[in-house]
């Protein structure tokens, strides 16, 4: 089967997300679609899957024009999709999720759950995915959830399988396993479209690579005769620096001292387990780990959004274990939260208001109960200029900004005052390369200005290139404390998966 998109154009109010895109994929091959965040990859895939209707262009299956008005049509035509955000109902079991939409039924429309279990086992055994049909999704790790998604697609007998950023949540070893699965799918006569922004992965698994930039396909490449930097340049439109530009760290006294901190969920699960580390002035400490291993909760405990069940947190000699977020802020802690839309910003409020969100109570912006909005406006203008926030008017709601510019608002707000410690969680998630470089430069600048910096990221490359010291978290514990220049990606990957490189002493 050959699947082809011709001249696909999709417009949203104010943006052209896809602009005359052509691409094709056949069974038995892997096409990598690469592009940076916001290049239009996901829109294109949603068009392909019948979730969006294209404004222009056509879809051809084996040369015949077809039309998808809903995912049901795409599924019927043999297209399967593994979404970046898993489409799994967390409170239901694996079997229930897998058969949703194609339920085996008995009398009176009753659900034949035994048959559903059997179906899951069959597919899971065939591709050795090792799934328990009765496990509830929310108890499963991300890697296992992805396998559930794959079973869903296979069960519907997809000829072409689309993976949207499938490796973002996997450990390096899980990524290798995932590539094995991709190869076995191709061997079984299926076609794969692999959407990613990671160059290495595209190069190692794809037969062909299409590069998407600003909604257009700007190039096609074959992995065997293309280099990483060539593709990067196609993606961004200019030469890109793949490493962070920084000097050797000169760490001084300890600024953040985390001792034996344990965090417990309301239902009794231990999510941060007896964690001890310090961050010194003049160094960037990176925390690596697969998403969901306690990093979020650790950051929340440090920032005061969660109470540590035991242990102590000391900032510059002052015990802040039981302090409120406000007190920690005043003690000189800046916090760039991991989810800018959910936590970092109130997107319906203006840029001006968001720039004082954590600072409105400082005497600069208010006296007593009265807000000094005129001061806030003046300051906002300065920050918009200084931090290169692209907006026509700071009185506009923050929701009008692109992801990268929203992140710059947070960075501007958090780093534009006298601080002692900066805690940045996933500081570059989902933003464009230009903004990534900018945010990284700001973080290094903070270090060089004599602050302590803690960076938490699930992007291993980011942690390895940005941090002066790397901690690895696994199941709530810190399992490694290493110098990024002295260990390989693979070794860190093993720590992230809970094992330990041979011969290593941790």
């Amino acid at each position, binding site marked *: 089967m050959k699947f082809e998109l011709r001249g696909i154009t999709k417009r949203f*109010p104010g943006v052209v997300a896809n602009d005359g895109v052509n691409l094709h994929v056949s069974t038995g091959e892997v096409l990598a679609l690469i592009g940076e965040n916001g290049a239009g990859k996901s829109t294109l895939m949603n068009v392909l899957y019948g979730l969006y209707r294209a404004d222009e262009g056509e879809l051809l299956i084996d040369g015949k024009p077809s039309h998808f008005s809903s995912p049901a049509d795409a599924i019927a035509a043999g297209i399967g999709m593994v979404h970046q955000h898993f489409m799994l109902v967390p409170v239901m079991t694996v079997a229930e999720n897998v058969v949703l939409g194609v339920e085996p039924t008995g009398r009176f429309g009753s659900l034949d759950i035994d048959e559903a279990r059997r179906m899951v086992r069959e597919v899971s055994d065939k591709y050795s995915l090792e799934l328990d049909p009765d496990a509830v999704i929310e108890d499963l790790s991300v890697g296992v959830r992805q396998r559930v998604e794959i079973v869903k697609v296979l069960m519907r007998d997809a000829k072409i399988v689309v993976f949207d950023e499938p490796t973002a949540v996997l450990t390096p070893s899980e990524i290798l396993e995932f590539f094995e699965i991709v190869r076995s799918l191709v061997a079984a006569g299926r076609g794969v479209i692999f959407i990613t922004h990671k160059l290495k992965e595209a190069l190692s698994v794809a037969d062909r690579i299409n590069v998407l930039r600003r909604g257009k396909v700007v190039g096609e490449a074959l992995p065997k005769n293309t280099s990483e930097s060539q593709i990067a340049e196609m993606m961004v439109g200019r030469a890109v620096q793949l490493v962070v530009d920084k000097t050797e760290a000169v760490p001084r006294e300890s600024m953040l001292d985390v001792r034996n901190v344990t965090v417990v969920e309301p239902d009794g699960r231990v999510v941060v387990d007896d964690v001890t580390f310090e961050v010194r002035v003049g160094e960037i400490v990176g925390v690596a780990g697969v998403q969901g291993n306690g990093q979020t909760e650790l950051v929340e405990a440090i920032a005061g959004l969660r109470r540590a069940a035991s242990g102590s947190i000391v900032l510059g000699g002052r015990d802040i274990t039981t302090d409120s977020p*406000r007190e920690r802020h005043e003690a000189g802690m800046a916090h760039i939260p991991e989810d800018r839309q959910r*936590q970092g*910003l*109130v*997107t319906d409020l203006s840029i001006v208001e968001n720039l004082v*969100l954590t600072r409105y*109570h400082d005497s600069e912006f208010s006296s007593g109960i*009265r*807000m000094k909005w005129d001061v806030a406006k003046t300051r906002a203008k300065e920050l918009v200029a200084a931090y290169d926030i692209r907006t026509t008017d700071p009185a506009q709601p923050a929701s009008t900004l692109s992801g990268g510019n929203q992140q710059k608002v947070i960075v501007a707000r958090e780093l534009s005052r006298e601080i002692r410690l900066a805690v940045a969680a996933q500081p570059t998630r989902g933003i464009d390369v230009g903004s990534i470089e900018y945010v990284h430069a700001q973080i290094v600048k903070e270090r060089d200005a004599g602050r302590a910096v803690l960076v938490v990221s699930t992007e291993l490359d980011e942690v390895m290139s940005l941090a002066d010291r790397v901690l690895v978290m696994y199941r709530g514990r810190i399992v490694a404390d290493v110098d990024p220049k002295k260990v390989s990606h693979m070794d860190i990957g093993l720590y992230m998966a809970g094992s330990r490189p041979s011969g290593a002493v941790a």
Partner: protein
Amino acid sequence: MNDTLKSLRFTLLAVVAALFVSAFIIVITDIEALGNGDFGKALSTLGTAYWGLFKGSFGSLRAISNTITGATPLLLAGLAVSSAFKAGLFNIGATGQMLAGAITGLWVGFAFQLPPLLHVPLALVASAVGGAAFGAIPGILKARTGAHEVITTIMLNGIASFTVLWLLKTELFKREGRDDAISKFVEDSAKLPKLFWFMGKRIDLLAHTGFVVALLATFVFWWLLRKTTLGFEMQATGLNQEAARYAGMRTKSLMVVSMAIAGSFAGLAGGTEVMGLYGYASATVAGDIGFDAIAVALLGRSTPIGTLVSALLFGALQAGGRQMQVDTDVPIDLIIVLRALIVMFIAAPLLVKAMFRVKGEVKSFGQTFRGWGG
């Protein structure tokens, strides 16, 4: 066209659509006339009814006075709903908060002998405090247990109604010589002056200076939102509670404070009714005002000025509805229907757009509800 004009146009179209649907209801329920096949009579009833609606609301000074009288508690109670909305809370409890404020204001009104310059403010403060205290309860329940305010405020309305019913029969509040639930009169020194006092002895002009209190409260609400840290915190919490928590705002205390502020507005609504309109309290002193206030707030999109305008509109409907009931046999309950329809059409700009074939982008109404969880 700018945003204000556009939303004004939608509001007008919504009102027109609601009047149209109500007209239909008036005609089809005129079963006597329709039974005789007298379609003309049914239509003429409709004409008389809508004319009465207008005449009774704006047709004379007395009508305007009635409109203001009706709008006063609607505005204050509307602010109670609007201010809670701004903080992300759905306050259905204005009725209960009004009753609480009515009772505390009433008590100060008859239990003390003071000069008017002292007595009136004191009684007003008492009713604000009473409403605030009662309003804080659902805030505390939500902050501590996660119980949703939609449920707790409805139940607290019931609790308030029956508590007041009981209180009014106690020795403290009972009017001498009466066995039913009706209170003593407040002292003359605690009565709010009439708004049209300069018109001499026109006793039919009921509007009282409670309306001035309501306008002041509207200004306070505006000032709170625009000029204060508390208002900023309320809005941030209302729009994104997680971000507010991240920003160091104490979101749980804010829930309680916001509900107390809301309650104080509603409490004033109860107090001004007692001190300005009735001079005493009965079990029905709050009437349906607490529920109507939800419509007021929704129509006014929870802004200070919007709440003011929609309270005046609903006050006018109220006053006109009474005239309509007198002039025709169309019961005043039609006003409830009319209000429901206005709210529905206001909240559905997409529908209004389709009905009147209006072009252009529609700003969505926004979301009042963020799930049942704690």
